[in-house]
């Protein structure tokens, strides 16, 4: 549950986080272009995109690490650009970088990280360290990358603010730790805290998030619930051929898109499956698998061209 002082600062109608037309450039490189996104209290939102899409930059604009060139960022009604210090009091932030002060122990780092937050919960932090199997008294320099990742997550949660912002939170975590973290984030969201995180782990995003937002070259190209996004993206079939196939041997339709090579191809389409099967029936097919409506399929559909 949110601590009383912060609970009182939040109006029920306020979004936890509001990005409006946020743009930022590093020199000549435009990293964010007119990003708008609203995250409600108690909502978990995942930011998805390939490397360089602008995910980390967007998260950094919330905590004053970068100042956006244009647009507004609000955290619990506070302008995070003009009043960065106040906005940061509402945010528990874990950067993607796990480099930490090597001479400190995990317990000392936790105490230092949350010392500036008015609603920090030190006891919660210690219990989460225990739960995730992080030794309290060991120096950070002697801990693995995964352990440091856990400490970063714990301090972000233990800060106690109404917004938790995590950059690549499940990177380097083993499956059990990942499940624990997901479960903890779910219960934090259930207590009214908003969670915004970036990730390349699409299955994790799908399991955890109420909504996902896809960033491409600094712009949000798609946002919504996993099922809704998959429905919008269309259907996908994975095909395995008996012999290697060239693109010009595959049937062409206006709304069809083939991806793959040799004997393995994927087909993005919007037609009824029966109609598609009737068209491809004459091809030397060894096997067909329905791609389903996963975020991975949405990702492939959105960024397939980028990879090519």
């Amino acid at each position, binding site marked *: 549950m949110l601590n009383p002082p912060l609970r009182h600062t939040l109006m029920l109608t306020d979004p936890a986080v509001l990005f409006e037309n946020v743009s930022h450039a590093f020199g000549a490189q435009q990293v964010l272009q007119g990003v708008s996104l609203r995250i409600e209290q108690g909502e978990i939102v995942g930011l998805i995109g390939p490397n360089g899409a602008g995910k980390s930059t967007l998260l950094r604009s919330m*905590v004053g690490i970068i100042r956006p060139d244009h647009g507004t960022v609000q955290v619990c009604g506070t302008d995070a650009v003009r009043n960065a210090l106040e906005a940061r*009091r509402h*945010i528990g932030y874990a950067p993607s970088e796990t480099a*930490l002060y090597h001479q400190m122990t995990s317990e000392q780092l936790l*105490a*230092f990280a949350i010392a*500036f*937050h008015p609603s920090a919960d030190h006891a919660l932090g210690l219990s989460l360290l225990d739960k995730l199997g992080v030794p309290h008294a060991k120096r950070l320099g002697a801990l693995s990358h995964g352990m440091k990742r856990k400490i970063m997550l714990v301090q972000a949660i233990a800060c106690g603010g109404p917004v938790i912002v995590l950059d690549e939170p499940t990177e380097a975590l083993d499956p059990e730790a990942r499940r624990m973290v997901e479960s903890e984030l779910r219960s934090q969201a259930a207590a009214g805290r908003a969670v915004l995180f970036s990730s390349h782990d699409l299955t994790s995003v799908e399991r955890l998030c109420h909504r996902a937002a896809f960033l491409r070259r600094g712009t949000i190209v798609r946002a919504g619930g996993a099922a809704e996004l998959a429905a919008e993206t269309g259907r996908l079939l994975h095909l395995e051929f008996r012999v290697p196939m060239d693109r010009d041997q595959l049937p062409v339709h206006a709304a069809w898109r083939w991806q793959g090579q040799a004997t393995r191809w994927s087909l993005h389409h919007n037609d009824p499956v029966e109609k598609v099967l009737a068209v491809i029936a004459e091809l030397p097919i060894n096997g067909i698998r329905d791609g389903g409506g996963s975020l991975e399929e949405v990702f492939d559909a959105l960024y397939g061209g980028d990879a090519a």
Partner: protein
Amino acid sequence: MIAIARQYARGLIWLSLGYFIILEAALVAAIFYWPKFRDNTPALAKLVPFQSLQDLLTAVQQSGYWPYFAIQQWFKGCSLFGVAAIAFMGSGIIAREADQRTAEFLFSRPVSRRKVLRVRTAVLSFAVLWPVYVSSISAIWLSPAVDEALPWAATLWASTYMACFLLTLITATVLLSVISTHQMRAGIIIVGIILLSFAQYLIQGIDQWSLFATIDVWTFMRIGVGEYPWMASGCFLTASAAMFALAELLLKRRNW
């Protein structure tokens, strides 16, 4: 504020103690070497190749223990060891965060960059300056062992003047650290400036423009007779304030 101070001090405690021990050991050795030095000063003055160093020895020859002590403790000990200590401890005040990629973690906390810089600079200044005072005061008690006496007031005023000089170097290092991405770079620049300045002090004709001219034996001899160099101290403090203000401004604008 306490959390920032504690976190930063944790990395400085042993360095500061080490600096004090070196300063104190050099001072004790110098004090107990004094009787032998006093007897051989005329011969030593003839051996020294640089005019500026010959002048220092002439001052010792004429005025005795106070200029000798000033050279050993402040001109040599505090300035050279102090610069080394500042380079070791201060160059990383901000640059280390960039170097070790902890800047994003630190500056995403709800604490202003200005406060971080102020608290850390205060801790750094304390770590560099307390050994100057403690070792100088210890000399007041040690000097009777070689049949000499150091006046309390002059010793404290001289230490304060030295502290003003070192504070200028501290803020210069802080400024360099704020604009650097590598701790080593800031440290090397400040040590380089001091070495160049010392080399300049040894060249007659341009020696009066060296930083070391502001802390040479003549300055401390004036302090010894009650003439505190207020103007020079004011210049040190003004320069420190200006460099620190610039460092704050640059840190505020820096993206990570």
